[in-house]
């Protein structure tokens, strides 16, 4: 009988107790994995952004517009490699609560800029450039509404209206695209700016913001100064920022999600740590006499220490690993209903790896005190204690 068998037998000596502890460990790690993934997905905008991507916004606030003429002026600045403009459409499908993330863009340049995030088929690329009333719809949005390429769909805007007074635009889906990297969100719709601009009844020749890529990260500083300097003291002053910083500031507006996650995960872990830690102390104390016998048989203190620690680590893993499974299940289940809020929700491998690491640490912490007690146990006291 090797030590591992002994560890296993010890752990399951009181089956109910072991199972209860595993359940509480399972829950703590499920909470950890779900919340950490949630927070990661929430901040995915920052992760996706490469450092050479900048956004140019109206200085007053990102909801204020910029003139379309800025597009060519910024494109001409030395150090700007690729650029596109965005106009927020404020779309919905049939009912205002069916929110559709839709933007009017310059099709060709938008696809060039987002080539690192999305995969465009040559047909979709050509059709989106060619068809004035065409829209490009991301794979997840297609799936969500059951649309297919060639469908005619009416999309209403909660902001804009057509010159006819109608709030709805009829679009043809000319193509779709998929994500190249997991953080890229394909629950999005793009339309050509020209058609949108000609048909809307007000706000003509205005856009929401510009997005651009610099020739190198080193050029960022210079490009930012050139853009904001160019429009200083004009009726539309700009503020240029890295896409990462902008996403971060935007996410921060909802509140300190990271802090909330940390507090809840902290509370869950403290709870389990106390319960399991105390139970381990109790379990080992119940076994005092046996440990005395093992020592009499020649088991060294170190070996006893390893066995008790092994037991608590095994317990943590047996509880924690299924916890990760539960988290995976939960995340897959709620992913679609939270698509608008946290697009890239999934159980990230590094979070799972961190969880496994935490399980080992957790096992060591809960097992340390009883293991040390067992190691130091004096045979005479052990056998004498009843």
């Amino acid at each position, binding site marked *: 009988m090797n030590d591992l068998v002994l560890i296993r037998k010890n752990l399951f000596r009181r089956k*109910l*107790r072991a199972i*209860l*502890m595993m*359940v*509480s460990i399972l*829950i*703590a790690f*499920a*909470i950890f994995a779900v919340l950490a993934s949630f927070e990661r997905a929430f901040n995915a905008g920052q992760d996706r952004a490469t450092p050479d991507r900048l956004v140019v916004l109206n*200085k*007053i*606030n*990102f*909801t*204020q517009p910029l003139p379309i003429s800025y597009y060519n002026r910024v494109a001409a600045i030395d150090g700007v490699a690729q650029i596109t403009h965005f106009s927020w459409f*404020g779309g*919905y499908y049939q009912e*205002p609560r069916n929110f559709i993330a839709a933007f009017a863009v310059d099709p060709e340049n938008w696809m060039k800029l987002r080539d690192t995030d999305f995969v465009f088929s040559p047909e979709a690329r050509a059709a989106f450039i060619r068809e004035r009333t065409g829209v490009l719809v991301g794979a997840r949005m297609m799936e969500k509404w059951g649309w297919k390429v060639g469908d005619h769909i009416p999309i*209403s*805007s*909660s*902001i804009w*209206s057509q010159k006819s*007074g109608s*709030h709805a635009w009829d679009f043809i889906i000319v193509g779709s695209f998929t994500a190249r990297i997991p953080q890229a969100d394909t629950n999005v719709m793009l339309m050509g700016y020209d058609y949108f601009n000609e048909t809307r009844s*007000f706000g003509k020749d205005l856009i929401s913001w510009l997005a651009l890529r610099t020739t190198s990260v080193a050029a960022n500083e210079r490009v930012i100064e050139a853009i904001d300097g160019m429009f200083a*003291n*004009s*009726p*539309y*002053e700009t503020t240029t920022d890295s896409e990462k910083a902008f996403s*971060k*500031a935007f996410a*921060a*507006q*909802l*509140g*300190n999600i990271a802090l909330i996650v940390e*507090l*809840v995960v902290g*509370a*869950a872990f*403290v*709870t*389990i740590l*106390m*319960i399991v*830690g*105390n*139970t381990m*102390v*109790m379990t080992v104390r119940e076994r005092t006499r046996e440990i005395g016998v093992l020592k009499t048989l020649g088991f060294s203190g170190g070996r006893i220490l390893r066995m008790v620690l092994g037991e608590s680590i095994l317990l943590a893993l047996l509880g924690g690993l299924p916890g990760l499974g539960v988290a995976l299940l939960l995340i897959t289940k709620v992913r679609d209903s939270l698509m608008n*809020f946290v697009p890239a929700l999934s159980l990230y491998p590094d979070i799972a790896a961190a969880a496994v690491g935490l399980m080992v640490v957790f096992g060591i912490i809960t097992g340390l005190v009883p293991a040390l007690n067992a190691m130091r146990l004096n045979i005479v006291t052990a056998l004498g204690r009843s």
Partner: protein
Amino acid sequence: MRSIILQILAVTAINLKSLPQRLWLSLATVIAVGLVVTVLLAFLSMANGFRRTIADSGAEDIAVVLRSGAVSEINSVVLRDQVRLIEDGPGIARGPDGKPQTSGELYLTVNGIKRSTGTKASLPLRGLGPLGPGLRRGVVITAGRMFNPGTNEIIVGRALGKEFEGFELGQTVTFNSTRWSVVGIFAADGSVFESEIWADLPVLQSLFKRAGSVQTVRARLTSPAAIETLRAYSDNDPRLKLDVMSEAAYFAQQASNTSDLIQKLGWPLAIAMALGSLAGALNTMYSSVAARATEIATLRAIGFGGFSAFVGTLVESLILAAIGGVIGAAATYLVFDGFTASTMGASFSQVVFNFQLTPRLIGQGLLLALAVGLFGGLFPALRAARMPIVAGLYG
């Protein structure tokens, strides 16, 4: 009957007096339950505070008119002619001078810096006409004065001034290369309007190139029921593609998404944690029964019934959970009640609110704690009641 009660009392007393022998394990249960209740109540008081701040801002006898499908003020556009048609509409109260009690308003967002984090946040800048403040409950200037019409002057809501930098009385702020002076601070009965900046409508219209159009029209109704008349009037006129709703309904809808989301996060988390601590409670109570096996068997041998052993164990578990619940509720009250936070509301702009813990919420927290105590004690109590006397005495 009397003897059963006496037995129960005696066994319960023994259980409770022996608690110190299982101090650490019992304490772990108490603290675990306490943390569960704290997490639950923190979320619930946050959702409640947010909802109250927004929902209480709306009055039943004020109509809010938005472009149809706009959902929130920031999206809406109401044109000059539509404003006029609404002003002439039925059901709108008129002042002593015969003028309709309406206010066309612009709702823009501008950047501010949040004090606690130093990050940029979007703040609402509302342009309103002379009747605007009067259409809101309890608006008073607490410092300085009202802005003068036609000038670049702003007044700042009390809550906004506390949470965001640069809006102190007498300061100058710049939006769009125009400078604005903060000439007053206003309170509005703790409503969402205290998270806003107010300026003169025509000045904002010209500086933000929105001449002629507004985003919403607010109107005082002759009675809350008049909303139906006004809505019918708007629906029947093809020139008015507008949504007419009471201010109370508007704000209730604005609040529901965020506060539902907070609650939807809070409950499952708390229940998951409660299940975790339930495992702990079961463990504690089973150990308690195991530790008292000899004692229980002795009591049974001298004629005590199994029922008293059952109740004694259950009461011990309930008391531990209740102590945990009370500690959790007290901790939430001390740490979170009145805690000021701000988040993004439905119009992409910040809403400042306070966490509000109410007796009803505390009741829900304690109920969850007692549920943990009940289930955590039930099975161990059954074991105690069914324990064979002989096994207990030899154990």
